[in-house]
């Protein structure tokens, strides 16, 4: 218990003493995970719309694959992304390995299936007759899609929230493709691993608590928006 309490005190100290290292790590985490979530959101919403509003051949298999993708092992993702980004790999000429860009790619691969699978479920839970009614109101295809996304906005927010959570809390892929370079690719999760490996348990706990605090703040904000809707 003392260890945890010391960790809490260390976290408070690190946050409120304006420790540049902590803010740098925090910023890197928010930057890479935010970007990965944004990529996951754009691609996930697009794929979800295609799967929910149309009936492409093999839809069940594709939806099943995205559902399975929610449980992608981050280490495996990290390994495959690293192989792709190696200098001798197919995407080697991008020179992304051991940069924040590599972490964004890896975290996008983790966040996209989560956002896609939950978005498909959200869009498919809309009453199909509402789509008919929106079309009958004179909506074009694009207007129909926009209105349906608006109808599912609260569930879609949850999907984005889950995607962000998966990205920011992930560590295996981040270390594998980012290298945990101080000032470059060190995130809250990789910093925690490093501090624990160094035996600085208080600092490790402090980074963990800051990570939890960030996740809680983001989730609380989104939940607040979600829960403002009137009860039916």
């Amino acid at each position, binding site marked *: 218990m003392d260890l945890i309490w010391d960790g809490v005190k260390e976290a408070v100290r690190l946050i409120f003493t304006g420790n540049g290292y902590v803010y740098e790590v925090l910023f890197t985490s928010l930057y890479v995970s935010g970007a990965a979530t944004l990529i996951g959101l754009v691609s996930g919403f697009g794929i979800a719309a295609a799967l929910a509003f149309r009936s492409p051949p093999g839809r069940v298999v594709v939806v099943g694959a995205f559902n399975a993708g929610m449980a992608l092992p981050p280490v495996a993702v990290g390994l495959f992304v690293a192989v792709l980004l190696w200098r001798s790999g197919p995407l080697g000429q991008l020179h992304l390995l051991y940069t924040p860009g590599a972490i964004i790619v890896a975290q996008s691969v983790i966040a996209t299936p989560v956002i896609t699978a939950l978005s498909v479920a959200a869009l498919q839970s809309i*009453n199909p*007759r*509402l789509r*008919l*009614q*929106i*079309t*009958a*109101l*004179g*909506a*074009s295809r694009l*207007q129909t899609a926009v*209105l349906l996304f*608006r*109808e599912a906005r609260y569930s879609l927010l949850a999907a984005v929230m889950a995607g962000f959570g998966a990205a920011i809390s992930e560590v295996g892929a981040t270390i594998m493709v980012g290298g945990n370079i101080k000032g470059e690719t060190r995130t809250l999760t990789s910093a925690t691993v490093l501090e624990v490996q160094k035996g600085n348990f208080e600092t490790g706990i402090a980074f963990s608590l800051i990570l939890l605090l960030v996740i809680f703040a983001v989730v609380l904000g989104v939940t607040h928006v979600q829960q403002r*809707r*009137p*009860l*039916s």
Partner: protein
Amino acid sequence: MTEPVLAVHDLWLNQGGRTIVNVDRVELYPGEVLALLGPNGAGKSTLVQLMALLVRPTEGRIVLQGNPVRDTLSCRRRMAVVLQEPLLLDTSVRSNVGAGLALRGVRREERVRRVDEWLERLGIPHLAGRSARTLSGGEAQRVSLARAFVVEPEVLFLDEPFSALDAPTRAGVMSDLQPLLKRNGMATMFVTHDRAEALLLGDRVAVMMDGRIRQIGRASDIFSAPADEEIAQFVGVETITLGRVQSVTDGVATVEVSDRIIEGGSGVNAGDEVLVCLRPEDVSISRAPDDGSPTSVRNHLPARVTRIVPWGSFRRLELDAGFPLVALVTQHAVDDLELGPGAEVLAGFKATAIHLIRKGSSTQSWNPD
């Protein structure tokens, strides 16, 4: 003759190898309400979706104001549809009512003016700021109607809009709706499986069964002169019995039904085998013997009451007049005439109440008027 606002020709929808709708012709005229009447599963809602350009037909031609429909979206924006379930967007009542206008790119000031006008007309201005999720069924359906009227459609489709409402709410919404349907040359198709609603709102009635329009014409004609036995049963003709025409004098047939002679009906020839149709509300019941005094009722048949069944605010009398005969009377009449199973009565009905269907006659009747 007035040009129809909307006309469909040879409309056919096939899904999974099954014909869902197969309609030769339907026309909607300016200012009229065509009630589309039919049992559940007849294809009424699908026909509406085809005519409202929400579903693409397998084959067929749809003509709006004389021009074949090509640009589906722009034509669809000249129509409005109210579905059975008032499917509102998860936003305020005001935004819901203005949704169709917003989708058509109507300017905000114009939108606000028209939304306010229709909220007022449907008696719901107080709901403007409410979330659509918090409305009762009746309120939601009024919002749904306002949302349809506000776009000032040339064609309005009402697909069983009252079926989910309780009786008092339904009566209220219907009475508010009735005058709104007679405006600016708008044509309305009103889908229902309720005969009373079809009679109340419909200028013409089309009877749809098994994906086909089986009869179309003035509401009074459909109910008094159904084209075939199935339609007769559906529109509430309770007495349908087989007879043979003995003679036709001055256009009025004399028909033998189970050794009884009745007079009435037309359009048949001596020797024809016919179905004699008689609505229960056209049959009068008395206990007094027929004294032969002059009366407009041409047919008087001695009959015996076999069963009395409560029928809403009426009582349904099942009689044996040599053939099964059904009458509707009030409970007051049952008490006054001391009616009960086994009671001997005199069943009377006018010749004009009789409708004859020649056996084996066509099952399609068109009287577009």
